Every structure is written in C-alpha cells, then in structure tokens.
C-alpha cells in the first residue's frame, strides 16, 4: 500500500532523478556541481509521470501524516531543514526549485506560499545591483518554477502574484535598491502569515452559512474547509458532516479522523454514494486547487459530479478558497487543462491492455457553484473574473 509509506514519495523522486541524471540540466547560471546533482531535484522540468502537484497533496493530505514524513525525510536524506536557506551554504549553487521543494515539505504551507518563499530566497541570494536585473532574475526563476511543474495551478498563481508585486512596486518608491530588496523579502515572509490569516477570514465569513442542524457534504481534504468546520464546531454549532471517501488518496478518511477528534458527527460516504445521500444534505462544501477566470474551480477529482448532483437537487455548493488561488486560466471543458496524473492502486493487478484514467482533478464550471468564500469576501463566481482583471491588467 503505497500511501502507507511516506518514504515512497521521496524514494520515488530520487530514483526518477537518478535515472536521468545525465540528461538533467540545472537552471542556475553556474555549472552544476556534484552536490546539486546529488540533490537531484534541479531539473528544468519534472518529467515524472506523477505530477509534483499531486505528490505534495499526497504528502500533505493523505493518511500520511506530517511526522511520518519528517521521519522518512530524516532517514532518507541528510537534508538541511527549510529554514536554513541555501544562501548560507556558499559552495552549493542556489536553485529555486530546491528551495521550493524545501518549503513545500512543510505540511501547513500552501504551495503558492512555498513558491513565494522560494522566490524570496532568490532575491536574498541574488547578486543583482539594480531593480531591473533583479526583475529579470526573478522572472527566470519563476519561469523555471512554473516549467518544473506545469500541472500545479497554485504554484503558477503564486509565482504570478509575486512577480506582479515586484513589477508593480517599482524601485522609484524607495530611495535605494537595498531597501527595496529588503522590502520585497519582508513582503514575501508575510505571505505565509497571509495564507494563514486568509483561512481564518474565510472561516469567519462562512459561519453565517452553517446553521444548526444542517448536514454538510465535504469532498476531499481541504485545509480551508477544515478550518471552517473547526470554527463552526468551536462556535457550538450543531451540524453533521458527510465525508466522501476520496479514492484513491483516501483524503476523506483523514478529514473524518480530524473531525471526529473535534466531536463533530461524521459519516463516511463512498464516492459513488453521493447521489444516494444528496437528499439528506443541506449544503456541499469543497475547497479548490485553483479558481479560474470563469469563476469555476479546479479541484480534486469528483468535485464536478458532486456539483452536478447538488445542482440538480438544488443544494447550494460553497467553495472555500484563498484569493492566491485565483489563476488566469480559462478552461472551456474538462480536457482543456494539463492533467495532473497520479498512481491509482486497485488492489488487484490491472492487465496492461486496460487503460486507467489517472487524472487527479477536474473542472467545475461556474454555473454549478453557488458562492465562493474567499478572503476578499463572499463572492459569486462571476466576480472572480472582475478581481482577476483588476489584479493582472
């Protein structure tokens, strides 16, 4: 059972990298040294079949807990902890992807925030002496980050957001380059708090929508949704939660564990029983990997069909998502985005002739969503695009 062992993920990464060590090239301007090769993560792209995005999710949300991960990490690699930046290590060339990977191992850190922290590390280690140079360097770093994992929406969104901030905060506003630089670093540090704060805001905003005696259907494990339910439980609201199983990562199981700890009545529902249970449900609560320009969301596989069922039974579908997940994407249909592939274990061997649909997420069009709870407020899906236009244009 692969999800039982956290080291599986790390092992697999290392194996994959070792295989194509010779073909890999580092993105950093200086030539690759031995140590960075041994690190093995400094490739321009992530040629795994399994998307890196999915690995993060598996590491964070699956039954694998963070302490297992920490143990496995300690056992397999002599990594320096994420807090010590690579700038402290002078003989190793700096790689933004290493940095990003260090950050994203932290279980409570969103991917977008990890990306921003990694970009902040780029600023810190940068030798640039003008704002323009710094901008170019940052652009390169963010491009390589984005190219490294094209499937992750929040990674792309995080990079874009930070670049936006840097380009908008022109050096003119500061008297000299160094203060501008430290300003940017400070700003990036803040992002971590912001993501934490955003969840709190969302939890507060959504309290009014949870009434006593309601039944909430939840799909997958979302930190934001968990925050919402936790706050509702703390506020002594009486409600019960249906958790979908969330095959194959079993993310629903983890959420039900966590909720049971809070003494919230929970029922686990297998993914195919959503329609069966829908008449008991008062509202559907889902998180999102990305909120796209149409106002629709990209989320764990199965969200679309839950939204369809809920819509046909006139149940509200609420989405909890931080605003840094807003992405400038406009998928027209399910196949219109790069699929994030994942391994699926069926328990029995599958003949090689049989194809397996391995995509990890789907796109839910805006007409099936009722409201989006974001740190910008409670929005209808159509407002997302307005926000994005103002943010990016």
């Amino acid at each position: 059972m692969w999800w039982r062992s956290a080291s599986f993920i790390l092992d697999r990464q290392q194996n994959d990298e070792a295989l194509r060590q010779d073909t890999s090239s580092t993105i950093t301007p200086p030539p690759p040294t031995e140590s960075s090769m041994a690190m093995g993560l400094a490739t321009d792209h992530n040629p795994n079949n399994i998307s890196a995005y999915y690995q993060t999710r598996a590491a964070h949300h699956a039954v694998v807990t963070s302490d297992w991960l920490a143990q496995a990490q300690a056992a397999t690699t002599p990594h320096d902890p994420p807090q010590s930046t690579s700038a402290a290590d002078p003989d190793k060339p700096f790689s933004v992807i290493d940095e990003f990977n260090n950050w994203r191992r932290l279980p409570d850190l969103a991917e977008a925030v990890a990306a921003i922290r990694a970009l902040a590390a780029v600023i810190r280690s940068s030798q640039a002496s003008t704002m323009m140079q710094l901008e170019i360097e940052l652009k390169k770093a963010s491009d390589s980050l984005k190219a490294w994992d094209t499937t992750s929406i929040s990674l792309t969104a995080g990079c874009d957001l930070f670049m936006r901030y840097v380009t908008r905060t022109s050096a003119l506003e500061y008297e000299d380059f160094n203060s501008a630089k430290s300003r940017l670093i400070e700003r990036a540090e803040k992002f971590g708090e912001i993501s934490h704060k955003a969840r709190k805001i969302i939890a507060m905003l959504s309290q009014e929508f949870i009434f006593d005696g309601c039944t909430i259907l939840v799909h997958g494990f979302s930190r934001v949704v968990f925050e919402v339910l936790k706050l509702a439980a703390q506020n002594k609201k009486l409600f019960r939660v249906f958790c979908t199983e969330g095959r194959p990562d079993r993310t629903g199981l983890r959420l039900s564990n966590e909720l049971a700890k809070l003494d919230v009545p929970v029922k686990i529902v297998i993914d195919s029983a959503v329609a069966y249970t829908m008449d008991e449900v008062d509202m559907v609560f889902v998180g999102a990997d990305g909120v796209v320009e149409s106002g629709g969301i990209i989320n764990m596989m199965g969200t679309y069909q839950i939204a369809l069922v809920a819509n046909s039974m006139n149940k509200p579908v609420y989405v909890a998502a931080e605003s840094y997940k807003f992405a400038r994407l406009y998928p027209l249909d399910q196949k219109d985005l790069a699929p994030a592939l994942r391994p699926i274990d069926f328990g029995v061997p599958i003949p090689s002739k049989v194809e397996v649909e391995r995509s990890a997420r789907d796109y839910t069009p805006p007409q099936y969503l009722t409201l989006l709870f974001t740190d910008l407020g409670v929005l209808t899906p159509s407002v997302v695009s307005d926000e994005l236009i103002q943010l990016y244009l």
Partner: protein
Amino acid sequence: MDPSRRAPRSAIDPVPKFRQVGFFTPGAPPERSQSGPPDPTHSPPVSDVSPSANSLSPVMIPPPRHLSDNLAIHARPTLASPLRAESLAAGGGGSSFGDFFPAPMSPATQASSSYSSRMAAGEGSFFDRHGVRGDKGNNNGKVASSFPRGGFDLTAMKKVSGGGGGGGSGAGVPASELTTVSVVNDSLAIHEKEKANRGGGSAVEAKDQSTGSKQQKPKTTKAERRALQESQRAAKAAAKAEGNKASGTATSANAKPAKAVKPTPKVDNAAVAASEKKGGDCPPEKDRKKDVPQPRMQYDDKSRVEKAKRRAMVKQTEARNRVELFRHLPQYEHGSQLPDLESKFFHLDPVHPTVYKVGLQYLSGDICGANARCIAMLQAFQEAIKDYRVPPEKTLVRDLTAKIGSYVSFLNECRPISISMGNAIRFLKSRIAKLPLTVSESEAKVSLQSDIERFISEKIILANKVIVKHAVTKIRDGDVLLTYGSSSAVEMILLHAHELGKQFRVVVVDSRPKLRGQILLRRLLEKGLNCEYTHINAVSYIMHEVTRVFLGASSVLSNGTVYSRVGTACVAMVAHEFRVPVIVCCEAYKFHERVQLDSICSNELGDPDIISNVRGREGVNYLDGWANVENLQLLNLIYDATPSDYVSMIVTDYGMVPPTSVPVIVREYGREQVWI
C-alpha cells in the same frame, strides 16, 4: 500596460493583492474602493469630458449635431436669397460668413437684430416646447428639469424687454428690427451678467467686460465684438477649469436652456443670428450641450425625421411597406441613393472627397465588416484632416469638430454607423477637444493624424493579434471548429492555428442574403485548411460533431450581450444546447456600455428586395411587386443580439474573460480608449 494608470495601485502598500474584507479589518481602509471611483488625480479630466463622450451613442443615432452646423442647416431652407444659401452651404456649416456675404446693415443694427432675435427665439422655442409638445411626457419632464435655470433666464430677459416694447414677448413672434437699441443693450447686459454668473470664478472680469462693451455698444465694430467674444471665451475657459466639478444635474439643467435659445427657422434674420452665435457664445453652449447624452433618433418621431431630412445630403425615399415593429428605425428604398450621390460627386459640397468615397462604398456595400468600415472611416478622416485648413476667424477645435460631425452625419446617411465606428468617432472627437489652445494648426493636424494612426494600429490591428494569440490556445488537435459568416478575427485565428500545424477541421456556416461565409471559405481553402460549408438551416444537424464555435461580433454590450450579424444568436443557441463552448472574438474598442435586451430597439434594416428574390432561380418570383401588396412587410434585419447565457467566453485584447466581466473592462478601459 500603462504605468501611469498603474501607479496608484502599486502605492497601496503592504498587501496589494489581498483586500481585507469583513469584520477582520474594520480599521483598514477598504481597498475595494480603489476599483470604484477613479482616483482623484485622474478624475478631473475624466469628469470633464467623459459625459461628452457619452453624447454619441453609436448605432442608429443621428450624428452629434453641433450647434454651428445645426444652425446653418436649420436656417438653410428658410433663406430667401440664393446668395445666402450658397454662402452657408459653401461654408460647410461654419465658415467665413463675411467673405461671401457683406452685411447689408450697419454693425449696430446687425448686433441689435441678432441679439433680439436670439432672445425672441429663445423665448419662442421655450414656449413652443411648453405649449405644443407639452403633452409628451418625455419632453415635459425635460423642460421641467431645466426650468430653474432657463426659467430665471427668460423671465429676467422678459422683464427688460417687456418694458422696452415687447421685442420677444409673444410665443413664436419673430423679433423685428424695430426693437430699440437701448432695450437690446439692457438685455445684452443681463445676458452677459447671467453668463458671468455661470462663469463662476471670473465673474467680475466678465462683468467688467460686459459693462464696458455696453456703453460702446451702438458703435461696436466687428473687431471690438471679436475682442469681446474672445474675452468671454477666455473667462469661460478659466471658469470651466474650476467649475468642472459641478454636478451632473447642474450641467444637464444648463444644457437645456442652451438648446432652447436656438433660433426658430421662421425668424427672418435667423441667418444673421446664426452667424453671430457661431462666433459668439455658441462654444460654451455647445460644450454644455455635449454633456447631455443625445437621445437616439427615433424614426417614428415625425417632426424630428422632418428636421433630419431637411439637412440630409442623401436623398432617401421612404420604403412603402414599413415593418410595423421597426418603425423607429430608418426604412428607406434601396438602390436609388447611389446614382443620385454619384452624380453629386463633382458638386461643391462640404464633404471631403475621401469621406465621400467611403460613404459611397458603404452605400454600395463594397466595404463591410465592422473593422473594415471603421478603418476606412478613420483613414478618410485622416485624409480630410490633412487637407483641412482652419477658416479665418475660426478656431481649429470647434470648426474641426463640427466638420467631423458633418462627415459623420453624411456617413450615417449612407449607412447607419456601427458601435465600433461610434467609439472611434468618440475617440477622435475627444482628441480634438483635448488639443491645447496654444498648439499651431499644422502641429494639431499632425498630432491628430498620428492619433488616428495609433488608434488603428493599437486598438484594431494589435488587438487582433493579441486575440489570435489567446484564442489559438483553445484550439487542439482533432477539433472541429464552427464559424458563422465572415469575421476577420476568426479568420486570423484559424489561419494562425493552421500555421502552427494544428490539425483541425472548419465548418463555415453561412446564410442568405449576403453569403459572406463564401469569402471566408475561399480564403481558408487557399491556405489549405480542411473546410466544410453549410447554410444556417443545417446548423442543428452539423452541431453534434463540432467541438468549438468561434464567432465574431459587431459589438459587445455591457450586459454581455453580443451584438452581431443576424443569425449569430441562432448559432450560439444551438451550440449552447449541444454543450459546445461558444467563443466570441471581439476587440475591446467595440465594447459599449449600453445594455440591450432584444434585437428590436436598435438595429439596422437592409434592403427588403434582396430577400424577396432568390439568386440564380428566376422562376422563384412569387414576391415580385411585393411593395404594392398592402398587407405584406418584408424584414431584412442586419444584426441580432445574443444573450450572454449562450456565450462561454469572450476573447478580447485584454485576455479571455467571461461575458459577465464586460462591464469591468468597459469601466476600467473604456476611458483609456478615449484618452489613450
């Protein structure tokens, strides 16, 4: 793109990307307001002219009638002497009057007659409105709203004139030259005072001027009057700078009386008055007039149609069996105008030959398609500006605006201007209005020409490139793309996707009577694309194999409604029903802030004869002579409105947006369009 626009946003310090909402940050200033009102540093110019930008609603609207040409046109039919008529016509509604027409009377009498007639006219038309049209609710309301200002104005004048012999007391009674000079002076003084009051800050100065001129009045020469006018103008300009912030209601209230002071054509010496006004106080009135959005011309409004007809260049004969539901739209006989206009080509006309040519091309249908029409118009204007000379004793800004206005009205008669053209005209006029007074004639012309050039290249050509770049990402291998009619943007997208080596098939859907799809089909086939051609009747059959629908648009309105070639709504509806994504490609300069719910209230009607007969089948002639059948009305609509529900995405130069975001783009960039 524009750093100056972005500047205020980057100034928001700590968290520019996140707005704090809700009870979490009660103290923090809500960043949301940033998006709402324009920031104060930019607002004055915006509030200054943007209302004027509204004055031209683009489709089916008579061209903005500026007072000068308006007056000339109104005056023309009433003129008895052919000499006068010719002089006015040659002047193009605003040229040197004195050259052609030496004043028959002494300056004093001229002045007196003009002022008194203006006064009389003002009162006359005011009463006229009240009495004759008072029963119409709409007009009534307008008059009432304008009353505070206009009412005071007129009563004050009446008091004076009433004492002096009732120069303008009766409604519609023409003022005669018998009015004594003293009365005229008094009324003039009051007029000046009133104006000075409006002028606000520089009131004292203006009053001084007026009193100074009052004593001199009987013996004023042309030069002196000129000086007086100049000073008034300067005062007004100064006042305008600070008086900008006057509320919208105030300006609209001001604007009405200005209109009411229009001389009635019946007045014998209206021509004199007109010329006087043109030089004198017409500019401020014109400015104020611009603040009020022009009501759209309703062609079932008899009196207005009459008026419009009188100044029309193109002789239109009304169609006989007009479609009842569309009576508010112009319905004319087709085919008769072209030879008529062609014969007029070498006559001395106020319309520049290039504009004339473009007009004829519109009329004959040689130029069609929103972008092509818009570019042709702008290039013609460019030529016209190049050849333009400021007539003596005119200012470039006013005269050129009037000139462009007359061109636009000519083009509008040839074929009703489209929304995109309306936006382009609005842009050009705002550029003219924004020209600094100090700039020389040649510099102004050069800058206007380059502005037009820039509009064409940035808003149309570059925008198309960006649209192509965005839209191509939505074409995948194995797609079947459906398009309707012939859209330049869609054509570029398909060709570019083909150049990129994508494997796809195109279904070109076409419809009678224009069969524009055949042009597109031919161009696509030349480049070696796989195509299929069908008529709109088969669209529901073909739709099930289609994966994407690409449509062009004439305009996108702010409720997301797509205003496009007739039949588009049908295609979009069928695609929606088959769950095929509908992608509308439209440049942002075609966006308009209007909201339209149906295709009836604003549309264009084509030649009904075209749909009555079938090309290539002479035997099908059941509708021959249909015009004589009383109870048959043929309707050949040109545009229709597609509700936003059927549109999945709109591709613009600002990226791919859902139809719900059109108002955001209109709000955020509509101004920039005018202000580039």
